[in-house]
Every structure is written in C-alpha cells, then in structure tokens.
C-alpha cells in the first residue's frame, strides 16, 4: 500500500467540510443556520490556508473573518430576527434558474481549474517552507524580502511593496467605520400609544 499522504488527507477533510457547508449555506432557508454553516465553511477554509503554507493568512481568516465579520453578521441576524425573516422561502422557479445558471458556471470554472497542466500536483521538495508572518509584515511596510534576488532593480527596490495599498486600506477602514456608524446612527422615534397609559 502506498503511504498515506497526510497533507492530502487533511486537504480532503477541510475541502469536504468547506464545500459541504458552503452548499449547506445555500440549501438551508433558516438564516441563523446559514450563518452557522458559513462559520464552519470559513473555518475549514482557514484550515486550507494553513495547509497551503499561509499560516498568517489562515490565522487572519479565523480572527477577522470568522471572529469578527461573522459575529457582526450574526449580530445583524439577531437584530432583525423577527419570526417571518428567519426562514424566507425562495420561489421554486428561481431555484431552478439558479441551479441551471450556477451549474453552468460551476462547470465552466471546474473545467478551467482542471485544464491547465501546470496546476496539477507536483512534488515539491521539502525545506522550502518558511514562516510567512515576517515577510508579509515587511511587504506591507514596503520591503519585499522575498524579492531580494530579483534581477529587475525596480522590482527589488521597494517598488513591489504594499505600503501604499496598506495605507489606503487603513484609511478605507476608517472611512468605512465612520460611514457605517453614520448609516446606523440613532434616530428619534415616537413611542405611540404606550406613553399615555400610565
């Protein structure tokens, strides 16, 4: 028997969990369950990231995506969780239409994913894996330590860093926070009849 490739086994595990729960998100009509399945799907994805050697991105995925974004989402779900909205049925026709269109998209994507030979599995020598956190941090600060040997000097000397996008994203986040606070700002509202019945 060939020895089991644990990398593949864990990939399979995470991939199945991820895809399975993605499909579950699609199929369930209960919005809270959807959120729960989404959590599992995204967590499994972070497992995939770990397997791909992107440990920092994986941890980031758990922390921001799963721990932050989704908590926010569920919070939103609970705020609006009035009975009728927990489960809203979609007309059957749209399911069919969606299934057809989505199925064709899936076929297209799958055939694209499997068609390029260079993307097929290759045996990679051990020892190339290095922790990525520092290099990512340096890249965000504008210095690409992984491109020190780059022959093109414009690539080498900081042109390929991500300082500017990083700053843009930071400002963007700030704007978003302000904006969302503004959108959901307090509004005054009269309480109708309840006031008079003291």
């Amino acid at each position, binding site marked *: 028997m060939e020895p089991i490739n644990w*990398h593949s086994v864990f990939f399979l595990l995470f991939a199945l969990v991820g895809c399975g729960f993605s499909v579950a998100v699609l199929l369930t009509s209960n919005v809270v369950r959807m959120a729960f399945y989404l959590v599992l799907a995204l967590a499994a994805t972070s497992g995939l990231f770990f397997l791909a050697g992107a440990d920092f991105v994986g941890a980031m995925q758990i922390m921001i995506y799963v*721990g932050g974004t989704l908590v926010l989402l569920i919070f939103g779900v609970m705020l609006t969780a009035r009975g009728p909205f927990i489960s809203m049925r979609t007309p059957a026709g749209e399911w069919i239409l969606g299934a057809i269109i989505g199925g064709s998209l899936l076929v297209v994507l799958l055939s694209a994913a499997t068609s390029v030979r260079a993307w097929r599995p290759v045996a990679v020598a051990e020892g190339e894996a290095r922790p990525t956190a520092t290099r990512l941090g340096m890249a965000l600060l504008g210095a690409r330590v992984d491109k020190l040997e780059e022959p093109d000097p414009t690539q080498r000397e900081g042109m390929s860093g991500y300082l500017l996008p990083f700053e843009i994203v930071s400002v963007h986040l700030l704007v978003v926070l302000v904006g969302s606070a503004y959108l959901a700002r307090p509004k005054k509202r009269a309480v109708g009849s309840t006031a008079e019945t003291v």
Partner: protein
Amino acid sequence: MAEYLQQYLPQSLAYLTAALVHAVLILVVVALGTLIFIWLERKVSGRIQDRLGPTRVGGKFGWLQTLADGLKLITKEDLRPASADSMLFLIAPYVSLCASYVAYIALPFADGWVAIHLNVAVFFIVAVLGLEVFGVMLAGYASGSKWSLFGAMREAAQVVSYEVPLGICVVVPVLIAGTMDLVAIGQMQAGWFFNWFLFHDPFTFIVFWVYFTCATASVNRAPFDLAEAESELVAGFHTEYSGVRWSIFFMAEYSSMVVVSALAAILFFGGWNGPLPITHWLGLADSANPLAHYVANLLGLINFLGKAIAGVTFMMWVRWTLPRLRIDQVMATCLKYCTPIAAFGFAGAVIWTFLFPGGLVIPNKDWVVQEEYQLDEPQAQSAASTSAASTSPLAHADSGLHAEEHHGTD
C-alpha cells in the same frame, strides 16, 4: 511518537494513533483543569465569603466535589425546549468547547512542550478564542428563549468590541519580542524576573492590566459576565440548558480562563521561567543532557502552571468581589478606557523599544532584533526536536510535505 510507533504499525495507523494520543492528552488537560478550577473557585469564593466551601466529598477539602457534581450533571435529563432550533441547540456547547480546546494546541506548557509549534501561535490563540463566542451565540439563539437571545446579543457585542483592545495588548509583547512564536517569546524572558515583559517598560506594565481586563471580558467572567447575568437574564445564554450540555459550557468557560491566564503568563510573566534563574544556576537548562533538560522543563511547567493558576485565582477574586457592569458601561469601558489605554501603551512601548532596545533594566540583551527564521534554527529547532511538534501529524500537515518527503517516495 509517530516515528516510534511506525516501527510497529503501518504508517497511517501510526500517525492516527499519535494524533489521537495528543488529542486525548490535551482533552485530559482541559477536563482535569476544569475539575480543579471549579473546585478552586468554590474554595476561593468560600473563603472570600467567610465560609468553608465544599468539605465533604473526597476528604477534608472536598476536592472530589466537582467530580460528584459532574456525575450528577451527567445523570440529569438532557432537556430540550420545544421552541428550540434543535440541531443548533445540541451543537452549541460543543462549538464553545472546541474553540477553547483548540487554543491549547498552540499553547506551550514549558520550553518546547507544545502540541504544535506554530510560528503565529499568539495570533492563533487569540483568533481561536474569539470563536468561543459562536457557541454562546448559537446557544442563545437556538434555545428559543428571549433571555437566551439577550445573552447572546450581549455576548456578540461585547466580544467583538473587546477583541480590539485585547489584540492591541497582545501585540505589545509581540512587538518587543519580534515574533509571534510563543516558545520564542517565552525563551526571551529567561533569567531574572526583571526580564519579564511585564517589567520591560512602564507601558507593558500598564498594558498588562488592560490585557487582563479585556481577557476577563472576553472570557465572560464577572464583572463582565453579562451574557449569563443571572439577576437580569435568568441565566443568559444557557438558561435552557441542563445536564451535560450545561456542564460543557462550564468546561469551555474555565478552559478559556486558563488559556487567557496562561497567555498572560507567557506574554508578560516570563512563561515557564521562574523569577530567579534557578535552572541556569543548576545548569539544567543549558545542559546537553536530555534528562537535565527534561527536569528543567518540568520545573518550568510547574512555574508556568503556577502563574496560570494565579491568574485564574485573580479572576475569581475579582468575580466574588465586584458587582456586574451594565452593558453600556461594559462597552464604554472598552471603547473609552481599554482601547485608548492599550493604544497609548502600544505607542509608548514602540517608542521605548526604539529608545532603549534592551528594555528597562538591562540595556544589552542579545535577542533584541531577530529575524524569526533565524530564531527557528538554533533555538526553536532544538526545542521542537524534543517536543511533540515534530511528531504530530498536524504538524506534518502544517509544515507541508514532510510526509511526502519521508514516506511518499519509497
């Protein structure tokens, strides 16, 4: 361990067995820890409240009381309300437990004694602990009870807010150490107690207190236990739970308490390094003899556990002393106090580290700025070789194609 087993078992079985053993070991730590800490909580609260606490079960100190309670809980009927979303209701406690359980796999108990030697361990633990909130929220929603829903919403708001200052606080030691590897961070604080990051500069000292506040809040302990505030929300998110599932929530709560305390111990209190460099005096830590190294680690383990337990006890003390905050006050505490102070401490620590790279007391330390992959080679590697890291199948999975290299080609 897997290598050892492989002499006797097929490769796949060997890895599975090794993985199972590791998992069970951590589970034992979690479960046993919970038993002990619940007992401790009762004793501590008893002392604080001028009473004795449990005295009967298991001898004079009642140390088997938790076990007896656990048995009772297991035999209780597992009730499920009619209006509950049954699947989520059944799953929620386990989601909660899983999150705090998973955090242990990256937590070093002594120099190199860690299930998986992750190089983003700090980040990982903070991230994974953040997931515990899902169990609580799902429980709250799925119970079909309004009180539970209130608890869940409070939890959601609270945890999301407190992750911000918590993250900033955690970043400060990481910033000083220059790595997110907990083992490396622990190793950097070796020697006298003034090498601890707590005493690195005044800002870390401040930041530690903010960290502890935020950690208390993020694990739902009083005075931030709004999600289960019994005087307001009956029992909050676990109002409808009983028996085993209820006790699993408890396990999750206590094990995450331990995790945050242990994290504090490593980040601020030198981890497994005692206040005095006794192991260095005895020559244990630097010895090439594996047995000596083992003894040193054992001493480190005791040190580490002591610090963690002290942290937990401190939380208990706080719990049995203070009234509970209100939800808006909790949020205000986070946004008006914790976050600015943490940010201030962060900025201060940056400046301090820039001006006095060696810290408060000893200006010249050899580890000041190190690339993490440099670190990996001499210290971390030797640590890892004695640890479980290199033998765990998960480690294999993480570090790529080890398995492929070792076994795939023959």
